């Protein structure tokens, strides 16, 4: 039984209306257009895709930080969109998020101690000062910060340390789901590994579920149990980690994987690259049928007419392509 079940989630943004009395001139960006996935306890799902494909919007819509236009987010069987304000507030304890820019996600006017204590103050106002401090120091140690830094300000830390502060802030309430919105893309490679390992250690310890959003396939491969590849607000392919890398079915996934650099110059030279042409089409006016068809090497007439449905090709592997059977 998955703890999180997303069914046909849609998030549309109205961009601009020419006049507010004219009804049909609204342009809608379909940032997330019918995405379904589920997540088990203690599992990590990686979400990849190029910028503008709706990764972050999906993450925020799952946390109900953006109201979904349509579809459902079932958290332990409860539809988040229908919850009362108070119930939602209580659920915030279980659903947490960390952000891409570690420094920007910390209030520059608060000390590390104040930042990490804030969730405690919000949800457990009855804790005494000493208890709060104890828990803050405990979590600081757990994420690899030393408690004597408690009175420092965020700008006195490096990017990696700031991300640790962000993780400490979201982990102090012992959440059950953590949405990581590109948590390592602003960091140095060696620091990336530290943060990823920290997240994995925390996962082992607390059995937390992670939604790991990234555009770096290498990073996602390291941390995820299963991976969803998005393209322009739709799922292209979802598969178990190794399955996806060894046996990608969707041409977009194949192209992405072939673009991952191999840290060996000889292999890199010999590697067969599958190059996709052109840029991401405007989400205001996505292509008809299969959204990838404008850049797809396998595209044929049917792709422009029929939207490919997600086909189950193995119990853990689904793909949306008319020609997935072809090599």
């Amino acid at each position, binding site marked *: 039984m998955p703890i999180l079940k997303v069914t046909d989630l849609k998030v549309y943004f109205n961009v601009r209306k020419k006049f507010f009395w004219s009804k049909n001139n609204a342009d809608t960006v379909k940032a997330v257009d019918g995405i379904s996935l589920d997540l088990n306890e203690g599992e990590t799902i990686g979400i990849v895709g190029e910028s503008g494909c709706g990764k972050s919007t999906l993450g925020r819509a799952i946390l109900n930080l953006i109201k979904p236009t349509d579809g459902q987010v079932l958290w332990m069987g409860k539809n988040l969109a229908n919850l009362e304000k108070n119930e939602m507030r209580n659920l*915030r304890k279980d659903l947490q998020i960390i952000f891409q820019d570690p420094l*920007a996600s910390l209030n520059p006017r608060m000390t590390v101690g104040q930042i990490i204590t*804030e969730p405690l103050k*919000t949800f457990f106002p009855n804790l005494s000062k000493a208890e709060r401090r104890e828990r803050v120091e405990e979590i600081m140690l757990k994420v690899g910060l030393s408690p004597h830094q408690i009175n420092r300000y965020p700008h006195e830390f490096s990017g990696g340390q700031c991300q640790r502060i962000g993780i400490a802030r979201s982990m102090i309430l012992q959440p059950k789901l953590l949405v990581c919105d590109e948590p390592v893309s602003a960091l140095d490679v060696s620091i990336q590994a530290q943060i990823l390992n920290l997240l994995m250690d925390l996962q082992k310890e607390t059995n937390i579920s992670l939604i790991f959003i990234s555009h770096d396939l290498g990073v996602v491969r390291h941390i995820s149990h299963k991976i969803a590849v998005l393209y322009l607000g739709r799922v292209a392919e979802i598969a178990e980690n190794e399955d996806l890398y060894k046996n990608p079915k969707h041409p977009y996934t194949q192209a992405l994987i072939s673009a991952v650099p191999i840290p060996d110059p000889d292999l890199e030279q010999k590697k067969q690259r599958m190059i996709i042409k052109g840029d991401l089409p405007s989400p205001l006016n996505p292509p008809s049928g299969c959204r990838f068809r404008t850049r797809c090497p396998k595209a044929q007439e049917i792709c422009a007419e029929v939207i490919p449905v997600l086909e189950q090709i193995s119990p853990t592997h689904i793909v949306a392509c008319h020609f997935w059977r072809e090599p």
Partner: protein
Amino acid sequence: MTHENKPKRFLFMKLSPIGERRYANFKANKRGLYSLWIFSVLFFFTLFAELISNDKPLLVHYDNHYYFPIFKVYPEIAFGGEFETEADYRDPFVQDLIKKKGWMLWPLIPYSYKTIKMDLPSPAPSPPSTENWLGTDDHGRDVTARLIYGFRLSVLFGLSLTILSSCIGIAAGAIQGYFGGLTDLIFQRFIEIWSGLPLLYLILIMASIIEPNFWWLMFIMLLFSWMALVAVVRAEFLRARNFDYVRAAKALGVGNITVMTRHILPNAMVATLSLVPFILSGSISTLASLDFLGFGLPPGSPSMGELLMQGKNHLSAPWLGLTGFLALSITLTLLVFIGEAVRDAFDPRKTFKR
């Protein structure tokens, strides 16, 4: 805890390094710094105007007893007089009575703002003399005394109006910026309409119905002055509500009001603070212009605008107009200098010679 670094403090506030830089920048602007000092000293002393300029002595020694007429009312009989009403210490009869059995210690300026001098050598308004340093006005009241009380009243009025209108303006701007969307749209249109109402005419009309007093004037000016800050605060909140740490706070389940006050407001305060001195000088000049037109504070109140009006009515007594002009222009200049220094200190692009 050996590595704990204590932030520097300014008054009671913790200073972040940015705050320290701003404080240093403010201090580097000598003109603004001295203006602040002069203004604070003037304001501090006029707060105790009753001790500097009063028609009652500070201390009376009579019949081996000490009396403090400023703080307590004594009947004339206490000094051997005839009436049970309060002793008029400027009356030569009372002065003689006290001098027979003791002495009096007078304030620096022995007139209050409402003391009418009966024994003027020339008809009022009389020119400056050793007794009346800046002369008297057309009622025979000492101009120096009226100036001291008038300065205090103007600054107090300006300060309270500034504080009240900042509170309302910040709250309104915060709500608009934070919630945005339809709230923002409706509020903005309301402000556009509201700011189109002519304040001066409204006060003129109201003044013909009710006699304005300090609080009444404050209220009606407050109705309009709060809009000064709304645009700035709204812009700051609109910007800040998309900051990651604001999003993070929302995701943590922190309530709207806490997010606004704890996370966004401290950042919006920068833009707000640099506007405050200008709002203060604006309120003072509005009050002065109302007084000048005769629609301000009730007759008899000391005020710089009223002094200017007397100067206009008595061109043959230039000390009235000159004093009013100098007092008002120096006050406003000091405030503008302070405002400029604050604004520059908060400007991140400005660099200063140290």
